[in-house]
């Protein structure tokens, strides 16, 4: 720990130090979990448009076969983790706090695990930048840290902004999780290799791998793996949450802040997760797409905490059963870490590409309890990594004034949950902010709808006016015609009458 680090650490004011619970799993190597009887593969496992299925129910598919293709610019493909039959394409419960169902493919493995023909690449470092990005996209790789942003799209950022540094996030600051730690210890070569490939795709000259100081074995392993590559450096990070947040990592490692509402690429930096790097290396070298991932199964209630490599689509219930079930009352099943992860409505949901952990938390671990009034202690403001004043924002949101919360920086909130974690009144601050962001998004949607409706209405009134005008014109025309006809008839009749008068004596009417 150098002098520069000491200074930088001293200047860090934000953050919390939640109980890590890392020792539950950090010494357990990643083991492969056997395939379950059924896999559910949601079409939206990434940020962006859901993928479009390219197989039909009843079809037999092979391991690594593409089941759904990306739609639009920001999207990602879905591949089969094993060979088997597509049983159904329909709405199934997905990991989402709402507990709603969404479109997914159901794959019944046949046990043969028959692969498609992959195209391995001996020397991916000789590939062009675009080709690397293309192969990463074809492999369906998304950010494995939890944000699930399609990795290839992020690799294309180098085109619009010159990127000088690729930061690799090995912070893993969320409590309980240790799958990144294990990946770095077990596959340091893959991490460094993937990082170098991504740097090549981005055109970045330097790679900085940031790892929290509570993972000395990972730091040593990655340092050793990086020793032959002068462009790759490893930096130890202070242990505090949320060190692994992109904005915090960029500020700590480069000293530059990501502009509000902007991308880190605008300051020449792109951040990827270490797990993503390891996958990128594997996808490029073997040609096999992303179909499995490492995740941590932990929490005080689980019988056998573990790090597992599971097929994407495996249900949480299967994973818990594999780990010996639960031994205590589970207050909450959480997917991801406890700070930002989501509460699962049930265990009948599949693991997706972004699932970094499955936690079975007891009520003591989960904390909570009923909220009381804010005492303005401003601890939340002290720990906020962004410099917001959560209690002021929440007070405004509670008073129904989300707009006022936006003035205080609601849109800059990264949702890390540090404020709610530390609040002595147990006010669900993060929940307030998600609620307000949702309301604002809904208001924006309704505003857009109002605008399009206004256009529709204008079109309608124009149409009505036109129709009325046409009708009036037509009526006028008809009237004119009728009158002309009447006149003609009258004239004709008059003429005839005159003639008749001449011929026949007038008959009284």
């Amino acid at each position, binding site marked *: 720990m150098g002098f520069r680090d000491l200074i930088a650490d001293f200047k860090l004011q934000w953050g919390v130090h939640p109980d890590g619970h890392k020792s539950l799993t950090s010494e357990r190597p990643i083991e492969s979990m056997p395939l379950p009887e059924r896999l559910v593969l949601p079409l*939206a496992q990434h940020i962006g448009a859901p993928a479009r299925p390219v197989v039909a129910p009843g079809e037999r598919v092979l391991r690594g076969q593409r089941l759904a293709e990306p739609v639009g610019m920001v999207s990602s493909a879905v591949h089969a983790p094993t060979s088997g039959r597509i049983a159904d394409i329909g709405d199934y419960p*997905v990991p*989402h*706090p*709402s507990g*709603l169902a*969404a479109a997914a493919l159901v794959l019944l493995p046949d046990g043969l695990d028959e692969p498609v023909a992959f195209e391995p690449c001996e020397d991916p470092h000789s590939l062009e930048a675009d080709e690397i990005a293309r192969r990463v996209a074809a492999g369906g790789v998304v950010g494995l840290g939890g944000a699930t942003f399609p990795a290839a799209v992020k690799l294309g950022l180098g085109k619009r902004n010159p990127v000088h540094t690729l930061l690799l996030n090995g912070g893993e600051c969320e409590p309980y999780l240790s799958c990144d730690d294990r990946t770095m210890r077990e596959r340091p070569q893959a991490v460094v290799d993937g990082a170098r490939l991504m740097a090549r795709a981005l055109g970045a000259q330097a790679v900085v791998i940031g790892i929290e100081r509570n993972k000395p074995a990972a730091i040593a392993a990655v340092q050793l793996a990086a020793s032959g590559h002068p462009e790759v450096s490893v930096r130890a990070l202070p242990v505090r949450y949320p060190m692994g947040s992109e904005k915090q990592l960029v500020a700590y490692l480069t000293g530059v802040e990501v502009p509000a509402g902007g991308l880190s690429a605008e300051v020449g930096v792109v951040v990827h997760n270490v797990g993503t790097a390891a996958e990128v290396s594997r996808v490029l070298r073997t040609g096999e797409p992303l179909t499995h991932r490492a995740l941590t199964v932990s929490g005080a209630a689980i019988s056998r905490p573990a790090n597992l490599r599971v097929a994407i689509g495996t249900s949480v219930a299967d994973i818990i059963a594999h780990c010996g079930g639960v031994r205590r009352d589970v207050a909450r099943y959480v997917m991801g870490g406890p700070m930002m992860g989501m509460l699962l409505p049930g265990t009948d949901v599949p693991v997706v590409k972004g699932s970094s952990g499955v936690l079975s938390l007891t009520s003591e671990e989960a904390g909570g309890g*009923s*909220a*009381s009034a804010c005492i303005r202690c401003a601890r939340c403001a002290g720990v906020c990594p962004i410099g917001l004043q959560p209690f002021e924002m929440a007070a405004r949101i*509670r008073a*129904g004034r989300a*707009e006022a919360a936006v003035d205080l920086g609601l849109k800059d909130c990264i949702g890390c949950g540090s404020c709610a974690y530390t609040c002595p009144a147990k*006010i*669900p601050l993060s*929940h*307030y902010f*998600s*609620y307000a962001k*949702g*309301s604002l*998004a*809904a*208001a*924006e*949607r*309704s*505003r857009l*709808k*109002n605008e*399009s*409706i*206004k256009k*529709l*209405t*204008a*079109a*309608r*009134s124009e*149409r009505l006016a036109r129709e009325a005008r046409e009708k009036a014109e037509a009526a006028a025309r008809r009237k004119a015609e009728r009158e002309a006809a009447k006149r003609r008839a009258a004239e004709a009749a008059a003429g005839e009458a005159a003639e008749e008068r001449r011929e026949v004596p007038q008959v009284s009417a």
Partner: protein
Amino acid sequence: MLIAVTSLTLIATCLGLILGIAARRFHVEPPELVSELEAMLPGSQCGQCGFPGCNGAAEALADGLAPVTLCPPGGPALALALADKLGVQVELGAMGEREPTIAAVREDICIGCTKCFKECPTDAIHGAMKQMHSVMKEACTGCGKCAEICPTEAVTLVPVAATLGNWRWREPAFA
């Protein structure tokens, strides 16, 4: 007496002169409040506010005769925007989080009379004589005019279905 009258007149004249000059120098055109307000309203003339069309509503708002929460299709977002424009306090509680609804046509009862889509202020209902009508979700404001006019009660307002796209966190419960 004379001095008093003269001096007061003198003061008043001087001040009046100053104000007159100031009024001319600092002249600004008053903004057309009604047209600005009308531009903010949805413009679907649905009449749910109880005023004759959006123009009527805008006039009532400008005169302070109507609350800013008058427009159900505009929702709380519009109410806040109007309150901001008019510089008044807004009581969103009165408006409530109205569950958004859209019209839906029940196929088994619809007789295809076309009355509803003639009534629809946004042309959100499509169909033809003696044929099933359907509702365009994007265009429907949930104003309910179609439901009122339908002779067989085949058009009803239903809550917008929750999807991952429109789902959002509810307000936290607070002790």
